[in-house]
């Protein structure tokens, strides 16, 4: 049970390359925090600094209000699950899980009790006598988690634990981690490059890029109110569509966006923010999520004309890749449940299609700073 506090944490390699810059984050007790970002964004390095596997170049790291910058990993009261499981290949599953307890000179009975309990929680009791080599990927990851939970650590670190599993197993293990978290109820810090994992697991998500924190927030917050272009593009699948557009001030507290020949009024609430910032007419990047678009088969007023290039059948919905008259690529999502055969046929590649979207789903980004004009 512990809080973790990172203040101005910095990591520089070989006196040259700075890979984590001024990282500030307060993690509350029993919180599940996910670091997410593309590879090389510094998320794993940050986690490894918390674990004590990398030296901290600058700043202060506290676990439970104790400064641990120079404390050895074994004395930080943390446990960590690695991407490649890091099971000790020469000893049995049971011994793997007992290893940290034996090093702490725990009583034999107690070790046995804890290992059995953890094995029971993870459903690996029948494999206890086996060597790790004889297990499947999913089972190995369970053992790795088991080795971490027997210790009852204050902070639970996970470094891309599901990346080596295939898609189906990954979904299953994801669900199990959610259940596990309910049972052992401690502080979790979880690193992943997969935004779906981040969204489904995290109480809070820390989105990183190039060693900088881009945004910290609940899954809902980062999805609804991305602070910049990167977060907007990174969270959500399929990716948010970006179009070049013009923001026009229509009057006191009234704005509209001109894009691809149509004009969409900005929602009141957002317009007020723009007004406060004193924003006038400017070129912007407009972001619209695929699921927020409406596909129109008729040709209404204020809809963007486009040509279908690819039609991806996903089962419950279609992903339509279209190209607008201005040459921009856009992805649209269309539920399949209400489609009749004729409409389906009209969605073949090469056919024309119209789409539009309401003002409230628009994300407006400054072209230069790439920051959101509304959120942040």
């Amino acid at each position, binding site marked *: 049970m512990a809080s973790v506090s990172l203040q101005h944490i910095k990591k520089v390699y070989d006196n040259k390359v700075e890979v984590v810059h001024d990282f500030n984050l307060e993690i509350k007790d029993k919180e599940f925090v996910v670091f997410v970002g593309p590879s090389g964004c510094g998320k794993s390095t940050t986690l490894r600094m918390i*674990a*004590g*596997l990398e030296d901290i170049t600058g700043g202060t790291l506290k676990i439970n209000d104790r400064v641990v910058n120079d404390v*050895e*990993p*074994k004395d930080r009261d*943390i*446990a*960590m699950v*690695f*991407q*490649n499981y*890091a099971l*000790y*290949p*020469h*000893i049995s599953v049971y011994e793997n899980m007992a*290893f*940290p307890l034996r*090093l*702490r000179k725990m009583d034999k009975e107690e070790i046995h009790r804890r290992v059995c309990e953890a094995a029971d929680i993870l459903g690996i009791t029948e494999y206890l006598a086996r060597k790790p080599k004889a297990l499947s990927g999913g089972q190995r990851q369970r053992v790795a988690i088991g*080795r971490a939970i027997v*210790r009852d650590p204050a902070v639970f670190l996970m470094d891309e634990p599901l990346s080596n599993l295939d898609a189906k197993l990954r979904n299953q293990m994801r669900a199990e981690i959610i259940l596990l978290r309910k049972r052992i109820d401690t502080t979790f810090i979880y690193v992943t490059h997969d935004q779906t994992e981040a969204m489904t697991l995290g109480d809070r998500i820390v989105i990183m890029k190039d060693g900088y924190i881009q945004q910290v927030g609940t899954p809902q917050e980062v999805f609804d109110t991305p602070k910049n272009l990167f977060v907007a593009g990174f969270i959500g699948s399929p990716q948010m569509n970006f179009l070049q557009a013009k923001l026009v001030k229509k009057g006191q507290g009234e704005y509209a966006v001109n894009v691809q020949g149509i004009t969409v009024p900005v929602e009141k609430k957002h317009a007020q923010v723009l007004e406060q910032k004193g924003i006038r007419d400017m070129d912007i990047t407009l972001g619209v999520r695929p699921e927020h678009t409406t596909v129109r088969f008729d040709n209404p007023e204020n809809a963007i004309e486009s040509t279908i290039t690819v039609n991806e059948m996903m089962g419950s919905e279609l992903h339509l890749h279209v190209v607008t008259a201005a040459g921009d690529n856009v992805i649209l999502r269309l539920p399949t449940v209400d489609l009749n055969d004729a409409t389906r046929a009209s969605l073949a590649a090469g056919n024309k299609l119209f789409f539009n979207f309401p003002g409230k789903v628009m994300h407006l980004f400054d072209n230069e700073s790439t920051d959101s004009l509304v959120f942040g």
Partner: protein
Amino acid sequence: MSKKNEIPEVDIVIDEQKGVIREVKQPNLRSKAGHERRVNTGIYILLVLISVIWLAPFVFLVFQSFRSYATEDGGMVAYLLPKQWSLDNYRWLFNDPKSNFLRWYGNTLLIALFCAVIQTVMVLSVSYTLSRLRFKGRKLIMNVVLVLGMFPGFLTMITLYFLLKQLGLTQQGAIPGLILIYVASSGMGYYISKGFFDTIPKSLDESARIDGATRFQVFLKIIMPLAKPIVIYTILMAFMAPWGDYVFASYVAFGSEPNYNVAVGLYRWVNVNDYQGYFTRFCAGGVLVAVPITALFLALQKYYVEGVTGGAVKG
């Protein structure tokens, strides 16, 4: 992978230019098999030839060691099979008061055993440190060793000799002296085992350290059990090397015959003493040295192969 002269195995190909699928005449299957058989026969012949060349000297060596010293000459002769098989030479090695062979054999065995233990500890310490631990000066150490390795080994021979002499470890003290110089710098030969350690995932160490192990415990409880092949390789190499060393051994033990190792003793029989008289004895001694070493080597061949191939690939 197959090295045979290949014939396309597909019998239908798509001809892109004409846009049609056309059939390719399937080559006669019997001729293909025949070709294959001819290639293999050729290879077998070559391999048998190579085997003969490789084994012949050793077979000859064994034959000559069994030649009767009493009725045939002890020197080199122009025929292979002894006219009379006998154990004369072996008997002489073991029983004759003029023969120091057993003594030499014991010396060498003693040196080899000590080296096998101490050198292995040294090599594993250095290679583990350079592979798994990160500390200031690590690169410097590796560069220094690289540079030192480019100096020819015998350059320092006289210095070593006088250093040993100061310690009283030459002539009568040659055996501990030799052990000392074999072992002292052996840490420099860390490349191959470092290469092996490098292949063990780093996350095992990290995981163990988070689990509460000190670096010493990681070394002892995690890495060493996983490094069994390279430990055996290192022991094997350390054990075998002293059997073949002539140069240092002869220099350090110079003039003190009871303190020779087998290489020095036998070399002097054929090159310094009257070799016509000692040749078959040399053969017998050679057989006695080669047989156990070869047996040991062949028994542990697997580890040796792992070591050299790993080492070559990793550099």
